[in-house]
């Protein structure tokens, strides 16, 4: 089965430790490297202190890339994507459970996958449709598919945020696709600047050294016209039309 969707990318934002400006990302895109381990978190001082105090780094990353894109756009649907989610919070909760300790209500309530969009809704007074996705290796494409459906229903724009937190060390044997924490936000609008199509594919496909969202960012920054991503039996092709 083949399918094709069209859309435009009006704006983007991205964050990783030490990579904040377009220039930072441009330099990284030309010569991508694994970033040194860091506890750095993005600045979210645009939020009142009482609101931002509970935000994990994952939430801060999502807010820092999403907030500027949502500025001046009320009624903006949001598609939030993260494969692994709030692993540091989950791990803290599991440690308490293992030690027979009571669980922190804050950690518990904010560990669920839709916590970030809940906070987003509260802090922005935003009541548009929001979705939290956890797909495996091609969550970005599934998120774009969701966004395209919302655009097709008449939304003038859809905000897509994809982010991954560095999981605690204990998960290292199972999680090999987060070389460093990162977040990317895309403001998607109706249009045909970009085309995404899906083809079925049998057999092996070469993997990438970088999270797919960052490969797409390199495509955007280096003015390349195509970006391909394969996961299981699915091959996604991003094609820039103009």
């Amino acid at each position, binding site marked *: 089965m083949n399918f094709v969707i069209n859309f435009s990318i009006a704006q983007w934002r991205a964050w990783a430790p030490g990579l904040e400006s377009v220039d930072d990302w441009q330099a990284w895109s030309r010569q991508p490297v694994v970033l040194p381990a860091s506890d750095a978190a993005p600045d979210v001082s645009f939020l009142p*202190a*009482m609101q*931002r*105090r*509970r935000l994990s780094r994952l939430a801060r990353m999502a807010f820092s890339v999403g907030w500027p894109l949502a500025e001046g756009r009320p009624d903006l649907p949001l598609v939030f994507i993260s494969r692994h989610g709030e692993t540091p919070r989950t791990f803290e909760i599991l440690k308490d459970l293992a030690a027979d300790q*009571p669980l*922190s*209500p*804050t950690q518990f*309530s904010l560990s669920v996958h839709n916590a970030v969009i809940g906070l987003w809704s509260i802090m922005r007074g935003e009541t548009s449709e929001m979705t939290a996705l956890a797909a495996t290796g091609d969550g970005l494409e599934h998120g774009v598919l969701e966004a395209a459906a919302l655009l097709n229903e008449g939304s003038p724009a859809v905000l897509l945020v994809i982010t991954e937190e560095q999981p605690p060390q204990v998960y290292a044997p199972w999680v090999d696709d987060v070389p460093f924490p990162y977040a990317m936000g895309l403001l998607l609008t109706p249009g045909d600047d970009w085309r995404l199509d899906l083809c079925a594919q049998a057999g092996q496909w070469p993997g990438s050294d970088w999270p797919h969202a960052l490969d797409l960012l390199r495509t955007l920054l280096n003015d390349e016209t195509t970006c391909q991503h394969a996961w299981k039996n699915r091959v996604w092709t991003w094609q820039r039309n103009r």
Partner: protein
Amino acid sequence: MSDLHRDIKQLIIDALGLEDIGIDDIGDDQTLFGEGLGLDSVDALELGLAIQKKYGIKIDADAKDTRNHFSNVASLAAFVSAKQEA
């Protein structure tokens, strides 16, 4: 400010992640929830847990005077003292 008042204020700041507040910013009789300091229901649960852990006391969430004990730092200190003596 007694040591207990001071300790409870520090506990509130640490347990609830109040980034920009020091113990001198919280009055003994200042309302903690809703008005005053502006804490919410998740904070109430988190603070209850922190108090139980630190002072080794049991709090009955359903008891009808529990809400009163959590009005302010002074009432919390009186509650903790009474529980510890009991």
